[in-house]
C-alpha cells in the first residue's frame, strides 16, 4: 500500500528537502531526510527504504557515489535522481550507475509525484510473481528472476536488476515484438529517451545467452520495430 511506503530524501538544501517531505507525506508516503552522501549510504545499507530521491551535488559523497556504492553492495532499492546536473552525460552516468529515473531541477511537483509512483509501480511489477514463473529455461539457458542468476553454456552468471527486468519484459511478451519505448517505460521511465542504454543491455543479454550473438536465436531484432523473444 502506498501509505506504507518509505522514501529517503537525500538533499542538502533544507528548504527543498522540507518542501519535498511535506508533499510526499501528503501523498501518503513516509519520508526521512538525509543531507549528506555518506550518511545516505549508511542509511540505505542498514535499512533500505522503498525509494531513494537522490541529489547529486552533496556533501560527503556525491549522489553518483551513493548510487554506485549502494548497487555495489547488491542493494536494489529504486533510485530517482533529482538534481541540477542536466547534461546528457550526467543523465547517462546516473542511469548507468543503476539509477531508475533522472529528473532535473527545477521540476514540476506533479511530474515528480508521477515519476515516484511510476518507479514504485515498476518495482512492484518486478517483485510480483512473474506469470511465466520465477525460473525460465530456453535453449541451454536457465534464468532465476528472483536470484538474479543465470546458468548458461558459460557457467553461472550474476545478472543486474535491469538485465533481469528487460529479459522479463521480453519473456512476458514471448513471440511478440516489444518496441524500445515499451521497454524503456517498463524498466526505466517513459521520459528517458536514451535508447543506447537499452541497446547495451540487449547486447549483453545476447552475449550471455546466444551461442552466436551476431545471429541471435532467442533475443531477435525486428528491424525498425524492436525486439522479440523466442525460446
Amino acid at each position: 500500500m502506498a501509505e506504507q511506503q518509505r522514501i529517503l530524501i537525500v538533499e542538502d538544501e533544507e528548504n527543498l528537502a522540507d518542501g519535498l517531505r511535506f508533499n510526499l507525506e501528503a501523498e501518503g508516503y513516509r519520508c526521512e531526510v538525509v543531507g549528506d552522501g555518506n550518511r545516505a549510504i549508511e542509511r540505505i545499507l542498514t535499512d533500505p527504504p522503498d525509494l531513494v530521491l537522490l541529489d547529486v551535488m552533496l556533501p560527503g559523497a556525491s549522489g553518483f557515489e551513493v548510487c554506485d556504492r549502494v548497487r555495489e553492495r547488491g542493494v536494489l532499492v529504486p533510485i530517482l535522481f533529482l538534481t541540477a546536473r542536466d547534461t546528457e552525460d550526467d543523465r547517462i552516468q546516473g542511469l548507468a550507475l543503476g539509477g531508475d529515473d533522472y529528473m532535473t531541477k527545477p521540476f514540476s511537483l506533479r511530474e515528480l509525484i508521477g515519476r515516484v509512483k511510476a518507479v514504485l509501480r515498476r518495482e512492484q511489477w518486478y517483485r510480483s510473481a512473474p506469470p511465466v514463473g520465477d525460473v525460465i529455461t530456453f535453449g541451454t539457458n536457465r534464468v532465476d528472476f528472483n536470484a538474479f542468476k543465470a546458468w548458461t553454456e558459460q557457467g553461472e552468471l550474476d545478472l543486474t536488476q535491469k538485465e533481469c527486468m528487460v529479459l522479463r519484459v521480453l519473456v512476458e511478451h514471448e513471440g511478440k515484438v516489444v518496441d524500445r519505448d515499451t521497454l524503456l517505460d517498463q524498466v526505466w521511465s517513459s521520459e528517458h529517451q536514451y535508447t543506447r542504454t537499452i541497446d547495451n543491455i540487449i547486447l549483453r543479454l545476447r552475449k550471455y545467452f546466444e551461442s552466436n550473438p551476431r545471429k541471435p536465436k532467442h533475443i531477435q531484432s525486428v528491424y525498425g520495430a524492436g525486439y522479440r523473444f523466442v525460446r
Partner: protein
Amino acid sequence: MSRHAFLQRNMVIVTLLSLIAIAQTAWWVIFQVQEGRRLRAEQQFLWEQQIVLMETFMEAHPDSAVFEVDRAAQHFPDLLIDEKTGSVVVRPDARQALKDLAYGRVRMFASEGAFFVLLILAGVVYVYWTARREAQNEQLQSNFVHAISHELRTPVSSLNLSLETLELRSLDSEQQKRLLERMSRDLQRLNDQIDYLMRAQSLARGELHLSVVPQNLSVLVEEAVHYYSPMFEHKGIELHADIEPDVQAATDGPHFAIMLRNLIDNALKHAEASRVQVILRGKPNSVHIEVRDDGRGIPHNLHRRIFQRFYRPGGEDRRSSQGAGLGLYLVREFAQTLGGRAYVKSEGHNRGSTFIIELPRNHG
C-alpha cells in the same frame, strides 16, 4: 579530450622538443671539439711542412750567413732555430696560442650550450607551469559553472515547489506562514547570488564603484549579528558578539555588509562549529573585524586558496561547501579595494578558524 590528457599530451610534445634542442646543443659542442682537433692537426701538419722547408733550405745553403737564415725564417713566424742544436722547431708560444684557441672555442660553445640548455629547461618549466595553471583555471571554471547552476536552480526549484504546494494543497495558516518564510529565504538567496555575480563581474572589469562615507561600524556589525541570531539559535550554535561601541570608519556600507555577512554565513553553514564569536575592535588607524569559530578548521595549504575566485572544496560532484566560490573572493577583493586586507588563521583540523578583515579608518 580530458584536461589531464591535454596537459599530458602538451608535456610530451614540450619534452620531445626540449630533448631535440638539448641533443642539437650537445652536437654543437661535440662538433666544436672535433673542429678544434682538426684545426690543431692541420696547423701541426703546416708547421711540419714549414720545418721541412726550412731544414731543406738550411741543408741546401750550409754556408749561408746568419742574416740570410733569419730572412728565410721571417716567412715562418711560428718557427725558430734552436741555438743549441741548430734544428728548426715550433715556437712554444705559438703552440700554446693554438692550444688556447682550440680549447677556447670548445669552452665558449660548452658554456653557451649549457646556458642554452638551462634556457630550454627554464622554458619547459614555464610551459609546464602555465599549462598546469591553465588546466587548474579550467577546472575552477567548470566547478563554478556547475556550482552556480546549482546555486541558482536550487532556490528556483524551491520557489517552484512552494508555489505548486500552495496550488495543490490546502494549508492551514501556520503552514502558509512557514511556506512564505521559506519563499522569502529562497528569494533572498537568489537575489544574493545574482548580486555576488554582478559584483564579481564588476571587479573583473575594474568597474567596482565604492561610495566611501563615514560609518558607525559598531551599528553595522550589531545589525548583522542581530539578523543571524535566530539562524544560529535554530542550528544550536552559540553566537557571541564582542563589539567595541561607536567604532567609526570611512568605508562603503553595502560592501562592508556583504563582507561581514559572508563571513558570518560561512561560520553558520560550513564551520561545523558549536560557538562563533564576532569581534569588532577600533585601533588608532584601522579597524579589525574577526569571525572566530571552534569548528573543523582549515588546513594551512588552503589558507590562500579559499579566497580564490571560483574555489570550492570537494570538486564538481561533492559539495563540501555550498556556494559558487565567490563569497570569500569578494571578501578579499572588497577589503583590498577598501584599502585593507582579509585573511584566515587556523591551527588546522578541528581547531577552529578565525577570519579577519582589517580596514583603514579613513580610506583614500
